């Protein structure tokens, strides 16, 4: 025990470093996936909670056959029972409701204008009474049969606007008398309960333009039964999934359960978008987690490399001791056991790291086997290395430098295997992708790290001869420092392969993270460009003709292109409807001007911008629309009119039509005959320049107001103009659900990459410090100053560190290019496939890293050689100083 304590104290420094590295690995391995899970789950919940109720909830709809015996309340439970448990257990709230189809619910005698009779849908269902406060009167209690009136309640807002009060009566389809018995006030109008019945809260009030009043009035089951014969009654059972119970882990089960639920309707059909939304999210999250896995594995490989380096420093420093023990009769196993007992001390560090990780918030991930493997590596590294050294102990210590500089067949084979493994990995990765099956393949995720290590190996083989040659060149010049430093660098570069490999992996992980971030950024910029096709976009209902000129007059606006769009126009050939398209009408020349002035790198086809009025309008169509059309000409409906066009070109996309829209037709406004343009009032504008959004909104509002006030009757639309700047659209992309996870992945990659890179440089210095100490002492006896000594260190380390950092940077930049198809970056860039972009910041950061690295090296060397007591180094002779 005493000997153990003494040995632990003797190797305390490297052992502590091993402990710290294991602690960091423990935290990283256990903690990072937890945080990643937390961010993913939050993103998921956020995304789900933003969905409209028709997508988010499971709503079964269907009629009730006359002979049906079920009650809707009972069926609400029955339907839930058949769900798969994954879904059933996540139902947070559920309601049933039944209402008459609005179009079949005209009422008379309300006192409202009845040129077109008001449409009051009659509705009943569960949960209503809990959602409201009774302001006046009572809840409906319609008598069964036909005695008395059908009793209804209205919201206070509706009662006022529709001029109804307690006791008011009116007739449903002129046959059934209805009486208002209560006025209610909702607790919370924003509650999801009200989502399907907006007109139940606030009725639609027409502006005497021929539209009917539309509202929903609430009754009881007996009340609804009275009108069931007069109008079609639609039943719905709605199940709200609790977003808080969703996480990525249970997603596949929930998606499957939801898909199955589509077939589980009891004589009803399911309306939901939940499975689709969840599946889309899962795909994005998988891509993000694959990215995180790559980055994490890079960091972990670097940590493992550092562990091996720390172990090597420890073992090298104690080589003499092991040789002595062996000479004194210690068996290899005995010496291995000694060091094993010492390195067992890292286990508490690993446990502490794991516990630290567990303390971080988030859903646990199954990562402890990795931690166990890492801890095993940290525990076994020292004993195994010790036993290897003890097997072939060096008692005389002669020419250790020559031995380590020589490349044996074993090492060459290992290096070649590494390169082959990396190459194979890249090939497999490009072929299969990283996470096709949902699980991230560890080997494939390690490919970037393997690639970096391979590059490091190649570099260490290439650099020494070059540096040696430089050294000979320097020998011809004046001054000794350059020559001495370069010659030593050329000789020892082969021996510092370990730190260099770790440095390259660390730097490449950092640069990879930054490069992918830059790529995603550039992809989002481009996606925004294509989505906006302008600096600012102004949207509204309809604007009058003068609006374009007024917008152009707003200070800062340099170009304006009005557009009219119909999100669901029909394309037809003759009388035959061929499909629904997204139809856009744009003025070609002004569109081209906006594109140019707002710097969007997109050139519209000349057939579009140069189109002129002729017999038929030359249109651009999407490939899918062209397929539906089948020929060269067709018709498209816009604002209720038909426009005949010929296909002037087939294009894959057309800004600002959203990427991924498959069916679209784009018509050049300038080619549409003047008389046919009347209906094509713009509902939006593309603007170039940097105007004040408020001024644009004011001009837009004025334009909409003028349009609303024009004509015989004023229209009852509130003019709301939406102004979207490029930056806002860009920020919208940044808010995507998995964005936080991606940012976290970059943070881990860049942060740990840089930190570990500096540590690796520190190791490179430490592992050669003794040898350098001897050289420095000798040189100092020949008149070397301290300053020259420091410069010598810099000259010696500079080539290796610079080349290592640059290699890491190049690998980091090249990696996304090699792996782009596997990484699935399009998931983060609005579906836009983007080429990998080179960020000049990377180059600057690499240079900065070299400089910081050199400063670290100086600091470590100063610290180390101050402790080394140079006088002793010389007196001890070359044996102890012979390590490098």
């Amino acid at each position, binding site marked *: 025990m005493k000997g153990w304590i*003494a040995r632990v104290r003797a190797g305390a420094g490297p052992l502590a470093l091993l402990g710290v590295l294991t602690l960091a690995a423990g935290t990283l391995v256990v903690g990072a996936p937890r945080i990643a899970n937390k961010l993913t789950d939050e993103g998921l919940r956020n995304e789900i909670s933003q969905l409209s109720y028709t997508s988010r909830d499971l709503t079964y709809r269907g009629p009730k056959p006359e002979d049906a015996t079920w009650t809707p309340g009972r069926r609400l439970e029955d339907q839930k029972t058949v769900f798969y448990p994954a879904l059933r257990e996540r139902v947070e709230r559920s309601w049933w409701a039944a209402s008459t189809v609005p179009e079949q619910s005209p009422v008379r005698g309300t006192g409202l204008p009845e040129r077109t009779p008001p449409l009051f849908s009659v509705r009943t269902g569960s949960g209503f009474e809990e959602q409201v406060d009774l302001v006046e009167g009572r809840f409906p209690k319609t008598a069964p049969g036909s005695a008395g009136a059908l009793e209804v309640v209205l919201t206070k807002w509706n009662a006022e606007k529709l001029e109804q009060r307690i006791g008011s009566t009116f007739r449903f389809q002129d046959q059934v008398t209805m009486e208002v018995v209560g006025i209610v006030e909702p607790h919370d109008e924003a509650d999801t309960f009200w989502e399907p019945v907006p007109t139940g809260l606030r009725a639609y009030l027409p502006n005497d333009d021929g539209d009917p009043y539309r509202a929903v009035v609430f009754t009881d089951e007996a009340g609804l039964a009275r009108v069931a014969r007069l109008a079609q009654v639609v039943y719905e059972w709605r199940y709200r999934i609790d977003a808080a119970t969703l996480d990525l882990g249970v997603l596949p089960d929930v998606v499957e359960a939801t898909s199955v639920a589509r077939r589980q309707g009891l004589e009803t059909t399911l309306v939901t978008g939940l499975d689709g939304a969840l599946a889309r999210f899962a795909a994005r999250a998988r891509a993000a987690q694959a990215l995180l896995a790559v980055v994490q594995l890079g960091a972990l490989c670097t940590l493992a490399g550092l562990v091996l380096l720390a172990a090597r420093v420890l073992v090298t420093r104690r080589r003499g001791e092991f040789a*002595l*023990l062996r000479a*004194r*009769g210690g068996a290899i196993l*005995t010496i291995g056991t000694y060091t094993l007992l010492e390195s067992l001390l890292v286990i508490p560090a690993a446990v502490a790291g794991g516990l630290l990780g567990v303390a971080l918030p988030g859903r646990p991930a199954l990562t402890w086997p990795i931690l166990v493997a890492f801890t095993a590596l940290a525990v076994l590294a020292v004993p195994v290395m010790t036993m290897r050294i003890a097997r072939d102990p060096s*008692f*005389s210590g002669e020419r250790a430098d020559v031995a380590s500089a020589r490349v044996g067949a074993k090492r060459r084979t290992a290096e070649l295997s590494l390169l082959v493994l990396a190459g194979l990995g890249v090939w497999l990765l490009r072929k299969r992708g990283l996470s096709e099956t949902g699980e991230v393949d560890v080997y494939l995720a390690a490919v970037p790290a393997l690639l970096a290590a391979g590059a490091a190996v190649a570099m260490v083989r290439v650099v020494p001869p070059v540096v040696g040659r430089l050294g000979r060149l320097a020998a011809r010049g004046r001054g000794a420092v350059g020559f001495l430093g370069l010659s030593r660098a050329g000789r020892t570069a082969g021996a510092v392969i370990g730190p260099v490999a770790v440095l390259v992996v660390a730097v490449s992980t950092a640069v990879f993270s930054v490069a992918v971030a830059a790529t995603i950024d550039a992809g989002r910029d481009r996606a925004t460009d294509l989505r906006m096709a302008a600096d600012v976009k102004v949207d509204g209902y309809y604007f009058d003709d003068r609006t374009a000129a007024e917008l152009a007059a707003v200070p800062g606006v340099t170009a304006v292109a009005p557009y009219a769009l119909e999100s669901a126009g029909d394309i037809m050939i003759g009388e035959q409807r061929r499909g629904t398209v997204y139809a856009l009408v744009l003025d070609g020349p002004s569109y081209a001007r906006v594109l140019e002035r707002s710097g969007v790198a997109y050139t519209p086809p000349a057939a579009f911008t140069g189109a002129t009025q002729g017999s038929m309008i030359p249109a651009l169509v999407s490939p899918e629309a062209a397929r539906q059309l089948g020929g060269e000409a067709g018709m498209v409906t816009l604002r209720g009119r038909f426009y005949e066009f010929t296909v002037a070109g087939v294009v894959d996309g057309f800004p600002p039509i959203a990427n991924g829209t498959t069916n679209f037709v784009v018509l050049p406004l300038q080619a549409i005959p003047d008389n046919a343009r009347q209906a094509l009032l713009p509902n939006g504008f593309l603007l170039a320049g940097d105007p004040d959004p408020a001024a644009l909104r004011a001009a837009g509002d004025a334009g909409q107001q003028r349009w609303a006030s024009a004509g015989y009757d004023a229209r009852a639309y509130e003019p709301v103009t939406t102004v979207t700047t490029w930056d806002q659209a860009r920020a919208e992309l940044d808010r995507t659900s998995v964005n936080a996870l991606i940012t976290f992945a970059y943070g881990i990659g860049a942060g740990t990459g840089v930190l570990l890179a500096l540590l690796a440089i520190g190791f490179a210095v430490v592992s050669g410090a003794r040898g350098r100490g001897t050289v420095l002492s000798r040189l100092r006896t020949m008149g070397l100053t301290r300053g020259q000594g420091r410069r010598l260190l810099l000259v010696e380390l500079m080539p290796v560190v610079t080349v290592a950092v640059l290699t890491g940077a190049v690998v980091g930049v090249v990696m996304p290019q090699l792996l782009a198809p596997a990484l699935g970056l399009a998931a983060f860039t609005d579906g836009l496939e983007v080429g990998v972009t080179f960020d000049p910041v990377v180059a600057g950061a690499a240079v900065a890293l070299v400089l910081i690295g050199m400063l670290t090296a100086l600091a470590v060397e100063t610290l180390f050689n101050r402790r080394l007591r140079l006088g002793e180094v010389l007196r*001890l002779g070359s044996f102890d100083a012979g390590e490098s």
Partner: protein
Amino acid sequence: MSTTDETTAPPDLATLQARAAQRAADRAGGADRLRGHLVCDGLVRIYKTEGVEVVALQGLDLVVDRGELLAIVGASGSGKSTLLNILSGLDVPTAGIARVGEYDLLTMSAKKRLSYRRHMVGFVWQQTGRNLLPYLTALENVVTPMRLAGTRSGRAARTRAMELLDMVGVGYCADRRPDQMSGGEQQRCAVALAVANDPEVLFADEPTGELDESTAADVFTALQTINAELGVTVVVVTHDPNVSTQVRRTVAIRDGRLASETRRTSRATADGGTELVSEEYAVLDRAGRMQLPAAFVEELELKDRVKLNLESDRVEVRRG
């Protein structure tokens, strides 16, 4: 060849020799078993460094008897340390015969080699720092080989260690770590450590190389004590002229072969005192080769060819 007479006062080398021989005979079980404790015959060791072969030993012959105190001298690079490493079981010869006691150093298995290092031999190196574990006290250092070999443990080991330390005169350093001891104390402690497991042979590679004269004398005295008191065969590689005059037999190695041998014998003088007689011999190998001393060659300006005349009791060498 040459004979020099040296009259020395005590410590009586002859007495020490006699005592060592007696102890060795006790250990071996009879004075007739003293011959040929270490035997090297045609020993060859070839190193390869960066593809270049270096022949460190070129067919070396050497026989050392049990209980002998032998000094090996030679210029730097002559192969002394290589020989010592081979005899210590730390290095393996390329060819020839090397035997220590029952152990054949060429064909030893790893297990046998371990047992050889544990029980048969002990070493002292030149660098004081290399002999002791820096983080253990002198006593703990001496106990270590016993624990490694499992020969003694606990109190028995500590008692034995203390005895040995006292024997070499550094008992007062028992609780000091190497950095709290002088170089001489460290080396004497190393001598105690080397014989902790009661080995039959002790090898010392320039044990006084790093020490000043008086300290070196202390260390050598320790070696002599060990040799005389325990009957351990001691082989010392040295440059130190003082050391080589204090042993009975000194062999010189040149170019990986044994070149000459000096033997010191004591005889009674006419006035009743003891006189040490030093005789230097050239060594004749099995093929009949021998090296002429460089001084003789220069003196007679011998070059390229020489004439040999066979007389009844000698061989004459003349200029050719």
